[in-house]
């Protein structure tokens, strides 16, 4: 017995080793592909912005202000190198751009990257809180909607319909409703700002509304698949309690689509954050983006857009790793 056991053990050990390296390779190669996508997209976007901004107006005139004399405008044009051919300007800009040097904000007169980095934290915190609310609401709700049996079958239908209806209600309308009820009528929570913990509540709920109904439906459809599978039938036949089945068999199987969706939804939340920040007067990256877009503040725009691209990149990589961590099958196959 022991003679035949040893080579077998070695045989199973061999492929496991190669699997481990192929997993590392998959992760690294995905990371590199994502990074290349990020750089390619950002360069394209920034070049397009650069050309469009130049087609729209004369940056020297904007910099000089409305009361400047033609000589002043000319001096500024020379000072900032705006008198050179467009192609040279573009190449100069790209060279700086690749080293995260975006120049000075035209409107605020401070380095654009600093300005954007200052606001970054607020937006990320807002989106993270919204993600937590999103997952905390959608997981139990989705497991309930996707489940079967129970005494109140009609209730499940009602909840499922409510989720569908909630999806049609825009999050900014929810935000306005929250302001009207909790800030104006009940005077419980502040309607403006993001500096105190109690001011986090309303914007985060409004933002989470953007993602939660969809996530609930994703979790529900995954859960109903698991509930129909043999795993659950067997567990039920063994007499396990519904609660045990839910936490031990259904939940782990729902985790992968849930994390994948919640990860993609972070982008959706960044989109929504721009509008929620406007609605609640939060000084985040979104509001900075709106203000600098209106002021033709090109360096600040480039810096903010780049930072947002980096967040998206980080979130994609993290959720990529996270669902491998959660699902051992993906780890082994290296998919």
């Amino acid at each position, binding site marked *: 017995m022991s003679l035949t056991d040893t080579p077998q053990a070695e045989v199973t050990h061999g492929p496991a080793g190669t699997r481990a390296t192929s997993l590392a390779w998959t992760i690294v190669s995905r990371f590199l*592909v994502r990074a*290349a*996508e*990020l750089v*390619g*997209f950002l360069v*394209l*976007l920034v070049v397009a*912005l650069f050309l*469009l*901004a130049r087609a*729209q107006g004369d940056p020297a005139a904007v910099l000089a202000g409305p009361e400047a004399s033609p000589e002043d405008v000319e001096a500024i044009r020379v000072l900032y190198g705006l008198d050179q051919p467009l192609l040279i300007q573009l190449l100069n800009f790209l060279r700086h751009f690749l080293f995260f040097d975006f120049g000075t904000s035209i409107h605020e007169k401070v380095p654009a990257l600093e300005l954007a980095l200052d606001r970054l934290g607020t937006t990320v915190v807002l989106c993270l809180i919204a993600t937590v609310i999103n997952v905390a609401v959608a997981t139990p709700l989705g497991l309930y909607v996707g489940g079967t049996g129970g005494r109140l079958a009609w209730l499940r239908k009602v909840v499922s319909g409510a989720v569908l*209806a909630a*999806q*049609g*209600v*825009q999050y*900014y*309308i929810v935000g*306005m*409703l929250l*302001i*009207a009820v909790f800030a*104006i009528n009940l005077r419980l929570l502040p309607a403006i700002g993001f500096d105190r913990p109690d001011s986090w509540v309303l914007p985060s709920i409004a933002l989470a509304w953007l993602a939660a109904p*969809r996530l609930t*439906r*994703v979790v529900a*459809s995954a859960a109903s698949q698991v509930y129909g599978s043999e795993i659950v039938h067997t567990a039920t036949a063994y007499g396990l309690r519904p609660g045990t089945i839910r936490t031990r068999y259904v939940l782990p199987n729902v985790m992968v*689509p849930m994390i*994948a*969706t919640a*990860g*993609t*939804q972070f*982008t*959706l939340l*960044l*989109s*929504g954050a*721009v*509008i929620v920040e*406007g*609605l609640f007067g939060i000084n985040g990256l*979104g509001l900075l*983006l*709106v203000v*600098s*877009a*209106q002021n*033709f503040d090109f360096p600040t*725009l480039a810096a903010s*857009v780049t930072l*947002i*691209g980096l967040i*998206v990149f980080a979130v*994609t990589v993290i*959720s990529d790793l996270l669902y491998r961590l959660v699902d051992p099958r993906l780890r082994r196959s290296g*998919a």
Partner: protein
Amino acid sequence: MTAPARRPRRLLTSRGVRSSLFWVVGLGILGLTVYYHGRGHAPQRIADRLQGPSAEHWLGTDSVGRDNVAELLAGLPWSIEVSLLATAIAAVLGTLIGVASGWYGNWWSRALLRLVDFEVAFPFVVLAVVLIGVLGRGQLQIAFVLGVSLWPLVARVVHGETLQLREKEYVVYANLVWGNGWRVIREHLVPALMIRVAVVSAFVFADVLGAAAALSLLGIGPSLETPSWGNMLAEGQHYLQRAPFIAFSSALALIFLVVFVNLLADRLARAVERSGAALAGAITEETLVTEGSVRS
């Protein structure tokens, strides 16, 4: 075998599709009627400003005394035109690039697809805000920007579908017989794709309706001389306490329209799935959200 072009007609007779189509088309016709009736805001009566609902003004009046019902009707054409235009841009751009990247499997089409991948991952409101800042706030500009921000949704679906269709026998044989890829695309591929494009476009349409109104909230929507539901909502935000009916009526109208467009899209998608015209599985809002991340 039924020709692919016949299928849409059969779909329209399904009950679920028909009832939601009724509302959406009804509102569209209403919008066009108002359009021919004359553009611009409803008449002002400053003495009647900020009123609640009454027999004379069913949903109250706004800050310069316009009747809210009349103002909703006046704002309808703008929203519908922008959404139609933006959806058309997204559909055409998405179809072109989706077919190109699916049919020709060469390096530039793969690079194009990578671009799509990242644009799906990039927050589209950020893109729209930046582009509107540069291009301006006219109706055409807003429609263009929203269309350009949302086309990857269409491109993704079209790409997946093209990959499947390319392997179909009638497409392979047509390609062999004609030896002309462009003709095969025009006569076989695009007609077969149309129904899927229609389904995604319906989802895009709903997204544009919501996003266009959100732009007004940020103060970068259409100018205030233009009546639109977003402008009404933005105004209502300032009068939440004194005249909640401005926000209430525009919000309700927006929710109503978006929900029905979404229902229409959802039912259309299910009907397509049942009829067997869909090859790559049903499009639902979930697939549009998740497909961006779960790539094998």
